[in-house]
């Protein structure tokens, strides 16, 4: 399953950091951050609850870039 989330982040490099962090989160099959559109597209692994996984994604993103936001 794929979902798109709106995000807020200041610099292109921070967006890359968020992408890395999201990719490493358990339950996420793949993630891409589009800095241009300020969107994060997350592909979840089968049988995962997107809501729970996204909480983790947000937590991990906050770790690498304090100044970011994902609008869940």
């Amino acid at each position, binding site marked *: 399953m794929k979902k*798109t989330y709106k995000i807020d982040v200041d610099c292109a490099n921070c967006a890359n950091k968020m992408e890395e962090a999201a990719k490493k989160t358990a339950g996420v099959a793949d993630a891409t951050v589009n800095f241009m559109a*300020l969107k994060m597209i997350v592909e979840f692994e089968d049988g995962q609850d997107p809501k729970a996984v996204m909480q983790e994604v947000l937590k991990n993103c906050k770790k690498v870039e*304090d100044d970011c936001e994902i609008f869940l």
Partner: protein
Amino acid sequence: MNKKQKKMLVRILAAVALLVLLTVLPVPEGPVQLLLYLLPYLVIGYDILLKAWKGICNRQVFDENFLMAVATVGAMILGDYKEGTAVMLFYQIGELFQSYAVGRSRRNISQLMDIRPDYANIEGENGLERVDPDEVEVGTVIVVQPGEKVPIDGVVMEGKAALNTSALTGESLPRDVKPGDDIISGCINMNGVLKIRTTREFGESTVSKILDLVENSSSKKSQSERFISRFAHYYTPAVCYSALALAVLPPLVMLLLGRAPQWGQWVYRALTFLVISCPCALVISIPLSFFAGIGGASHAGVLVKGSNYLETLAQTRYVVFDKTGTLTRGVFEVVGVHHNQVEEEKLLEYAALAESFSSHPISRSLKEAYGKPLDENRVTDVEEISGNGVTAKVDGVSVAVGNEKLMRRLDVEAIPCHHVGTIVHVAIGGSYAGHVLISDVAKPTSAQAIRELRKAGIRKTVMLTGDTERVARQVAQELGVDEVHSELLPADKVDRIEALLDRKGPKERLAFVGDGINDAPVLSRADIGIAMGALGSDAAIEAADVVLMDDDPMKIVTAIRIARKCMRIVYENIYFAIGIKLVCLALGALGVANMWVAIFADVGVMVLAVLNAIRALIVKKL
């Protein structure tokens, strides 16, 4: 400016005011001075210190915040209050500038891509009603007024208008539509009122497909970006340890030699070193360059699915074309009437009338060439002779339209044609009247595109086609293509591409350009697949790496030029930023450059690199 930026601006102004006050007013030396300077320092830098601390807690130690925090705290401890505060201040000014520039270019790009329609007009009982395009069912009649966007793909029922397609194709010439024409969503109706019967749902319409593509453009990283992430990964820790060594080793050596260690001086140099070394200019400007490059390209009607493709495109040295639909228009047209015994128009009229009941492409092109409405009542006794042609009576006169076999069958002596294409012989009243030459014609800009490609440094252009050798040769010669392979099945095309891939050099890339129909395997086998005329063809959008919105071959040249420009900017930034940093680092270590030079090496380089990156957005004059 958004809220965050405004807040930062206030903080910057406050810190500047406080710093000026402290410089002008007589401040007593000692702890009071430190306390006073801490005021502007904390106003401007509290978030950096906080971020650095959080980074340490989250084991993300070596980032810019950490560098800045260590450098400025160090300067404060050494008693260089003014410098410490100023470093923080300029760093924040640089950040604000960068965030502002990014915001501006993002807005620019989203304006360029602002094709999402907000509503559709449906005729209701009380005149026009505005509804969500998502709710419009296929087959509904919608009304598009002047100045409005066409929300859904469909067919024009009523009205004529000129359409502005520039948001979709980058083409500024308006496109005229009349009843019966297909119309694609995303165009802007410039003058007339149009009634359109929708042929697709909103989600399946062109505009949704394009928005989807732009927003989901897989963020495949280019080599340069990967290089920068790797670089930053090793660089920042390396710099931190070097700074530590610079602070500790020389004084220790001095001590061993029995001289004064001069701790203060060496720590100051180490801090300068840290400030200079901040890799912001690189980590910010490189992704930004690609971001701007892709944005600029979409403005020109070239959709690039990732920054790696921009890089590949810039290295393209071989361009392989599909013929039909790519270099040629893919529709058959009457290109000449020869040996005609009657007037040209008369001949076409008779031929078109005789063929008027046929749905064969040939009959379509005859009708088109004649160009006037046909009165089918004038035609009687139509007989189609499969593989030969048609005989019929037009105004009571017998007319035969077909190939040489038909002429032989009717005992009419046909004059053969030496041109390449499909020859349609016409006999009127039992005697030969001449023949019509029908062939696929090259697009008007194809030859120019090939020439421009060569000028742009493309080493070889190759054309692949399933067509006969004679036709292929003629087109290739007309357009100036270097190499041509004809009579190929789709699988043969892949073989040819593979043979070409083997032949090219290691740093050279091969692009395949097709119209997306039957081309998917070749598009994916080439280093980079370019699909053109994407409006209306979903297969092309899926299979290709680069999508040209309209079917003008000149766009290939534009795409390559945009990619080259973007890559040039990327390399400029890499060399410029690393070069300046290395020089300043050396000067800092030797003690020639002080903290003030360091600030400018950091913030100045970043501002210049960001400005340069934004240049990739400008694609007008390519």
